[in-house]
């Protein structure tokens, strides 16, 4: 039952249970059927074969041969962004909303370094991205040539894998493998650095691919160990106060994982909570759903995690925003952790049982094994547990009062949710208070509808992500719930939105503060609001006007419904400036360095709370 018996050394060895030796040179059969074509042309052919229909990019000297091929291609559409960071976020929005690999194309040097934030964001949130970067010609590498950067060196720690293609003979294999690596196992970003000579010189191209018929050298485990599943169900049968804690792995595994999770919830009758990245896996109105957990999660979700005697973690990674103070995290529970990434198991929280596998495979195996073992939830204990949970629910931790005409941000998000129901809807967010209010007050009933920067917390994510989401879903309503400070970080993408007439709706919760920074300064730094005020903001209506968009503003609570309806009914892009209560804080909140059962529910509690010195050093 210890971790050691289940995740044995064999698991490491079996990672590449296929034959070794990816040949470095083309085999005889490959050479026989290979035709020689320029590298850039080869690239486009392979992208097409991988099912790529859109590239998000920005041209430059080192990628001109590829842009020349794009000019000739009818199969692949290029979306010109206004900054390379935005290209990656747009590809992330595309990938998260479709489940496909997002593709980025940027030039060498500054093009590549600008993409680094996006790549790191994709790595932290496990988003499948292939990023093609131009590079100076091979013979100039290492000479500090114009627009040269050590892209493979710079991106090594912020990608799942990267390639510097120095030999044309490797080109097709490297690109094909890049797509496999990006989408398999725990997805992530992969960079292919392409020197300009490799793009121009002829390279061997084999129709149908050179890589797919070979044993793959990267073969992460997807099907869980049977003994581990048996053990897990045994533990489930003993559970009296259970909880299911689901994360982004459920989304990455595809919509079937969410369907199976809902079946699991139905069959067990157990409470379920989701991380920020997992929202949508369980419909928000399911009575078993406790809401999001963690620092700004619900009281009932966090207290359930704290008080449970059995925790089933499906595709979540015990992030510090979720666990709070580790030595007080769910102290009395047996923990089972299923994750596709073996390195995520026992990384920060020691679990009783680790299961390596894809969420779909794991939940399906659990359901089958539950039948085999005649699983029945412990009804009496469960009823008592729900009684307790319902008492926590009665605290109504998300309650707020919309009094007077100053718009409460919670009210704005809740009205947006109510008035947009029934639409084919996708929500992106930036990072900060508005993001947490969106997570708390917007309900999702399906996966892949919620695009937010969780792990890296990248301000400026939401607008470009909305671009990518809208490109992938042209008929849908895509709303970027934003804050005025985050919006300014990538607002150059308004130009992209205008160029492609994307009907993106930008819903800015404008409190004229970097709200989350201000909140932490209030809590931890004696209300000394150092540099957190949003000065010199543009007039958002005039800003919309300069890009030919519709600009709207809500200044009073009476305006809000009209503005939202007008925004939703406008065909083109809209910037809605929602002037909200300036000093509203995000509650409930687990102060840093505190445990789940030490939540602050309101501003009144905040004034009496003290954050420990240990807590203050945490971010």
């Amino acid at each position, binding site marked *: 039952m*210890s*971790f*050691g018996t289940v*995740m044995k*050394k*064999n698991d*490491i*060895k*079996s*990672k*590449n*249970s*296929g*034959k*070794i*030796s*990816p040949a*470095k040179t083309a085999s005889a059969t490959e050479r026989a059927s290979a035709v020689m074509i320029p590298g850039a042309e080869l690239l486009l052919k392979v992208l097409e074969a991988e099912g790529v229909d859109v590239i998000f990019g920005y041209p430059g000297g080192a990628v001109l041969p590829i842009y020349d091929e794009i000019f000739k291609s009818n199969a692949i559409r290029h979306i010109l962004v206004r900054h390379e960071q935005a290209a990656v976020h747009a590809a992330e929005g595309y990938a998260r909303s479709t489940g496909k690999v997002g593709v980025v194309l940027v030039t060498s040097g500054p093009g590549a370094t600008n993409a680094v934030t996006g790549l790191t964001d994709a790595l932290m949130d496990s988003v499948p991205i292939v990023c093609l970067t131009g590079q100076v010609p091979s013979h100039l590498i290492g000479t500090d040539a114009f627009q040269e950067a050590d892209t*493979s*060196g710079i991106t*090594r*720690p912020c990608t*799942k*894998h*990267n390639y*510097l293609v*120095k030999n044309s003979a490797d080109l097709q294999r490297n690109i094909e*493998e890049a797509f496999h*690596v990006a989408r398999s*196992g*725990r997805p992530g970003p992969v960079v292919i650095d392409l020197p300009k000579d490799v793009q121009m010189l002829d390279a061997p191209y084999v129709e149908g691919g050179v890589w797919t018929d070979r044993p793959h*050298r*990267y073969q*992460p485990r997807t099907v869980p160990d049977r003994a581990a599943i048996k053990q897990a169900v045994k533990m489930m049968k003993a559970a009296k106060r259970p909880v299911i804690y689901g994360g982004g792995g459920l989304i990455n595994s595809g919509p079937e994982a969410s369907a199976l999770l809902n079946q699991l919830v139905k069959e067990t009758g157990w409470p379920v909570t989701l991380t920020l990245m997992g929202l949508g896996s369980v419909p928000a109105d399911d009575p078993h759903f406790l809401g999001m957990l963690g620092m700004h999660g619900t009281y009932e979700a966090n207290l359930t995690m704290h008080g449970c005697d059995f925790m089933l973690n499906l595709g979540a990674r015990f992030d510090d925003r979720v666990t709070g103070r580790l030595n007080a995290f769910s102290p009395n529970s047996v923990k089972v952790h299923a994750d596709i*990434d*073996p*390195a995520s*198991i*026992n*990384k920060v929280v*020691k679990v*009783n049982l680790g299961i390596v596998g894809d969420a779909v495979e794991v939940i399906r195996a659990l359901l089958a094994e539950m039948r085999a073992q005649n699983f029945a939830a412990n009804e009496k204990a469960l009823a008592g547990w729900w009684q307790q949970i319902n008492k926590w629910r009665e605290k109504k931790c998300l309650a707020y009062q919309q009094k007077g005409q100053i718009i409460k941000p919670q009210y704005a998000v809740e009205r947006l949710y109510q008035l947009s129901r029934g639409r084919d809807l996708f929500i992106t967010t930036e990072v900060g208070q508005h993001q947490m209010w969106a997570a708390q007050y917007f309900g999702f009933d399906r996966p892949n509808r919620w695009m937010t920067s969780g792990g890296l917390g990248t301000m400026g994510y939401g607008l470009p992500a909305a671009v990518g989401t809208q490109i992938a879903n042209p008929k849908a309503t895509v709303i970027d719930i934003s804050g005025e400070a985050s919006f300014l970080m990538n607002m150059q993408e308004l130009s992209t939105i205008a160029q492609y007439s994307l009907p993106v709706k930008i819903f800015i919760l404008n409190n004229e503060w970097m709200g989350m920074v201000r909140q932490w300064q209030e809590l931890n730094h004696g209300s000394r609001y150092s540099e957190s005020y949003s000065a010199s903001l543009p007039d958002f209506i005039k800003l919309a006007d300069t890009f030919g968009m519709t600009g709207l503003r809500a200044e009073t609570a009476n305006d809000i419904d009209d503005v939202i309806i007008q925004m939703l009914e406008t065909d083109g892009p809209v910037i809605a400036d929602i002037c909200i209560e300036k000093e509203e804080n995000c509650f409930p909140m687990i102060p840093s360095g505190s445990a789940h059962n030490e939540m602050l529910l309101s501003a009144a509690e905040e004034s009496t709370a003290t954050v420990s010195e240990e807590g203050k050093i945490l971010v």
Partner: protein
Amino acid sequence: MLDTTQTERHTLSVLVDNEPGVLARVIGLFSGRGYNIESLTVSEVDEQRHTSRISLVTSGTPMVIEQIKQLLARLVPVHVVEDLTIGPAHVERELALVKIVNSGSERVEALRVADSFRARTLDSTLNSFIFEVTGNSSKVSAFIRLMQSLGSVEIARTGVCGMTRGNTIDLADKDEATG
């Protein structure tokens, strides 16, 4: 449950594709996450398959050691990660070159100590020797300590390389056999 308090020293044997950047990937993993590398050796071991073996010695709590192994295993060019310390019995060896500059009775004693450690003399002048000593790390360290007390020394050590005892001949073959 794993114990998180005790630090252990583990020797890992990692079979990787010999491709550009693979060593940087392994080292970056350690430096980026704040793990220790006590020693690391790498060389190509199979010219046809283009595979290299990295032998590395690291220390950490059992939880950290387990993390390191899983993080290494998920790197794309890594084929096999074997923990020699928890596996079946293994041998590990290290080679050191020790130059000692001294004279008189200390010079005689140095030669005598070298003999008892079965060190070979690779170079000699009237007031210096270069000795080559092989053995496990503690033997090599003991030899170096003795030399340091007998004169001025300069040292080059290879770091540990190791493999499991018994009749299985290569991690690669084991890997294929289980596949």
